[in-house]
């Protein structure tokens, strides 16, 4: 694999809620086109870390360097809020666990997909419409549903709609928080298939937070295991899962039910 420049560089990020440690001294580097999985039990700081990366939460200390188009590598922690709100959507988008947090239920599918583009100043209805149709096809939603309200979609369709909305701006980095949580197993499998295809095809770098090891096995090149806010093990996904060193990772790897 050729040497690729990092798109995300996280250095010594700490976040506490009062006495509770959410993230402690987390550092990692993500290169273009690479998919990093983060696993760990509930309360291990995965989601806090992801919210810090997305600029939704300010860490207590540390640096988060993101390669933002037009700005170059910038520390989003030190950046002022107005600038961050404007610049960060150009670089990354966040897929929420619950699609209702990431889409607008009272707006049509087409409107949901077009909104990020309109936020960037695109003002041609016909163009927006054709981009929306294109993305509906990409995420396997019938083009005839373009004017249906997102509320009328099933959970799996809403999640696919959210993914389309996140990818329509062609971000180089996508952050996913439990993208398959709350979906039934067959829908999960289809969604994973779709995500894997899109990520590989578009060469997007991604951070996938989950507690489902099957998800990281399928999607992630590298894996980070967190416990009580610390990164306890890190490496290639297959390596970590097949030959876990830390006792917690061993427990995690052996807890998966075999169907």
């Amino acid at each position, binding site marked *: 694999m050729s040497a690729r420049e990092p798109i995300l560089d996280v250095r010594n990020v700490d976040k506490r809620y009062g006495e509770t440690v959410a993230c402690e001294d987390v550092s990692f580097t993500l290169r273009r086109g690479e998919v990093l999985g983060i696993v760990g039990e509930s309360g291990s700081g995965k989601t806090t870390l992801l919210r810090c990366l997305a600029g939704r939460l300010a860490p207590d200390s540390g640096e988060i360097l993101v390669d933002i188009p037009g700005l170059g590598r910038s520390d989003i922690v030190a950046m002022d809020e*107005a600038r961050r709100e404007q610049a960060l959507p150009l670089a990354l988008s966040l897929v929420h666990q619950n699609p209702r947090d990431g889409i607008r239920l009272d707006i*049509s599918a087409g409107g949901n997909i077009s909104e990020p583009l309109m*936020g960037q100043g695109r003002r041609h209805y016909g163009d927006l419409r054709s981009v929306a149709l294109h993305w509906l096809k990409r995420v396997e939603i019938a083009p005839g549903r373009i004017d249906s309200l997102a509320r009328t979609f099933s959970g799996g369709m809403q999640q696919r709609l959210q993914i389309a909305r996140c990818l329509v701006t062609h971000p180089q980095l996508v952050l996913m928080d439990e993208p398959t949580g709350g979906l039934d197993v067959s829908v999960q499998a289809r969604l994973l298939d779709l995500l894997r295809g899109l990520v590989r095809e578009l060469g997007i770098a991604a951070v996938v937070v989950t507690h489902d090891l099957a998800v990281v096995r399928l999607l992630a090149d590298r894996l980070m295991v967190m416990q009580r806010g610390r990164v306890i093990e890190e490496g290639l996904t297959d390596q970590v899962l097949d030959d876990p060193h830390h006792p917690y990772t061993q427990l995690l790897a052996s807890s998966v039910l075999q169907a």
Partner: protein
Amino acid sequence: MLDELDIEDTAYSFAYLDAQTKRMVRRSILKAVAIPGYQVPFGSREMPLPPGWGTGGIQVTAALLGRDDRLKVIDQGADDTANAVSIRRFFARVAGIATTERTEEATIVQTRHRIPEAPLREDQILVFQVPQPEPLRRLVPEEFHSRRIHAFANYGLMHVMLYENIARYGHIAMSHNYPVRVHGRYLTSPSPIPKFDNPKLHRNPALALFGAGRERRIYAIPPYTDVKSLDFDDYPFEVQRWSTACSLCGATESYLDEVLLDDKGNRTFVCSDTAYCAGRREKGAAA
């Protein structure tokens, strides 16, 4: 309703509000003029009419009035509707100022739902009564979120509403309260005026002040400020057009109201701006 109040000239301050309150309202007005389109919070007072009937407008008017002012009040373009008549009489009584129905003679025009057809001048002030000052409210219920959107000028969401209109109806179906960008910065509600009146806000020589009493906000469009109605490149902003002329004065350039004549479906169109219509008829322009 306002006429029934037993207001003695000596018992109330000039123009009803006390001096401290007027000073507070004026400060908000100055800030609003300094930041075109920005909604300035103010301490709205109880007024002797219900919220929704123009409490914001009359507080702004009360703060502006001087002894030499001449006030015109219109409601949906008409000078002779109950709301317009009672607000005009209220100020005639509590401020002892002159009133008029002619747009050209007025120094302050308080209005609900219309901008007069006659062009305004630099020495005139237009005061709007505003029910909902927040143009994003239909899309963003929380004040916290809408303020962030304004702060970051992140207005893609408003275009989503236009998009939905075109997707559903084939055109932008908002006929009034059509959102505008003021001075290239703040997204602003022009109050529920028909979109026919939106172009009049653009670079108007008169100062436009907007008062929302229930929502406690004042905002302004200063004279000669750019006001752009939102649209798409391929669906440009358009105003209403009528295929007929006013049946009273024959005007073809004014905003027309449809009036039912009987229960057989007969109808006619007349100018909504009664002063404009009467002025044309006086000059002998009758159809």
